[in-house]
């Protein structure tokens, strides 16, 4: 069996492993690293439950080989909370009832965070377009949109703090 030695940074930690080329990134995360927050949903590149950030971009980890992430930076749902504090997107999903069964939530949150990093103040249409690769079968999306709006507001407020004394431009 041919294996490749790969190294990557997952949620800020360097990990190293020998993997077969055919190992998918989602299996690597779940089975080699025991990071089971990233879910396998449809297994057909449709649902987005397996979404992770690879080098800052949200991708479906069921459709990326682990060897492709060699040398890269991967962020999963487990990396969202920092120092025991929920990430604003996690708070948003809790406060706005953005989940029911919770299966799509990890992927949905990773996509949402990536969207807010690109576009800190998206319109509702932009949010709905942005999450159109993530399927939720419970909520009807209404509260997911609210959760992302909540997180956007909170993240904007947090980012504004260092410049609190600066003049505000619309």
């Amino acid at each position, binding site marked *: 069996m041919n294996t490749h030695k790969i190294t990557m940074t997952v949620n800020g930690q360097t990990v190293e492993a020998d993997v077969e*080329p055919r190992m*998918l990134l989602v299996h690597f995360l779940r089975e080699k690293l025991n990071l089971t927050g990233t879910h396998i949903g449809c297994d057909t590149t449709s649902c987005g439950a397996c*979404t992770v950030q690879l080098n800052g*971009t*949200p*991708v479906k980890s069921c459709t990326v080989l682990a060897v492709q992430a060699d040398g890269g930076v991967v962020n999963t749902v487990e990396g969202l909370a920092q120092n025991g504090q929920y990430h604003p997107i996690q708070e948003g999903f809790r406060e706005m009832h953005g989940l029911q069964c919770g299966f799509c939530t990890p992927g949905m949150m990773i996509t949402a965070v990536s969207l807010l990093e690109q576009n800190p103040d998206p319109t509702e249409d932009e949010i709905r377009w942005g999450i159109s*690769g993530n399927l939720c079968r419970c909520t009807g999306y209404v509260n997911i949109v609210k959760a992302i709006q909540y997180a956007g507001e909170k993240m904007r407020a947090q980012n504004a703090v260092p410049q609190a004394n600066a003049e505000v431009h619309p």
Partner: protein
Amino acid sequence: MIPPPFEYVAPKSISEAVKILDRDTNAKILAGGQSLIPLMRFRLASPTLLIDINRIDGLEYIREEVGWLKIGALTRETHLDRSDLIESRYPLLADTTRMVADPLVRNLATLGGNLAHADPANDHPATMLAYGARVVATSPSGTRVIPIQEFFVGPFESSLEHNELITEIQIPAYQVGSSGAYAKMERKVGDFATAAVAVQIQLDRSGQCTYAGVGLTNVGLMPIKAAAAEQSLVGQVLNDAVIHKAAQLAGEVAEPQSDQRGTEEYKRALVRTLTVRALRTALKRLDRGG
């Protein structure tokens, strides 16, 4: 599902990649992987070697140069989507890239891969037919330019030789009076088209059409160039009668099959409707001065 075992290499240069490709007839190029990896997981494709071109520098770019818009084969859909140049001058391409799969897939999916896969349900083939684009292919013996109408030769089959890699796509550069649109009917985000129509036109100062390209998605075993529809538009002022005549001809050249997305008659009617919509959108865009 897990693909069958294969070997993997990630060369750093085009010349290295095509040298490896040349040696192994069971090798496949891995670009965005958004079609190939699912195919391998379903075991519909079982290459014994994957040549990952994602670590080759200089294959992702968008630039206008001597009469052509040149796009590196590894350029991601998201990159096309966010390009101001494409947004302002190539509305047909802008429309098309936004209709490919979903935002997450578009973060990895590439223009070169979309064409190389030669899937009649993919969106870019019809668009490239409408533009009259060219594909630049590189092999160990050099590069060759393939006109897009000679590129698709069968279902999932292109005229690429086994040792050729798509390195660039070339679209005729924007000219004043050119416009286009992509009209797609899909059941939901991320689905393949029930049918879609790509239209590119060029009008002279008097409003007469001097170029027309019409391509059809997923209504046949191959992407279809609606040549009769194109010819019916050239030399005309694009009024309602001319638009409907072209739509009629586009519907006639479609070869749809009845399936879960609709009946043959429905899809043919859809091609007519989408042709009208795409032409009207293209004209409206010209009225707006872009």
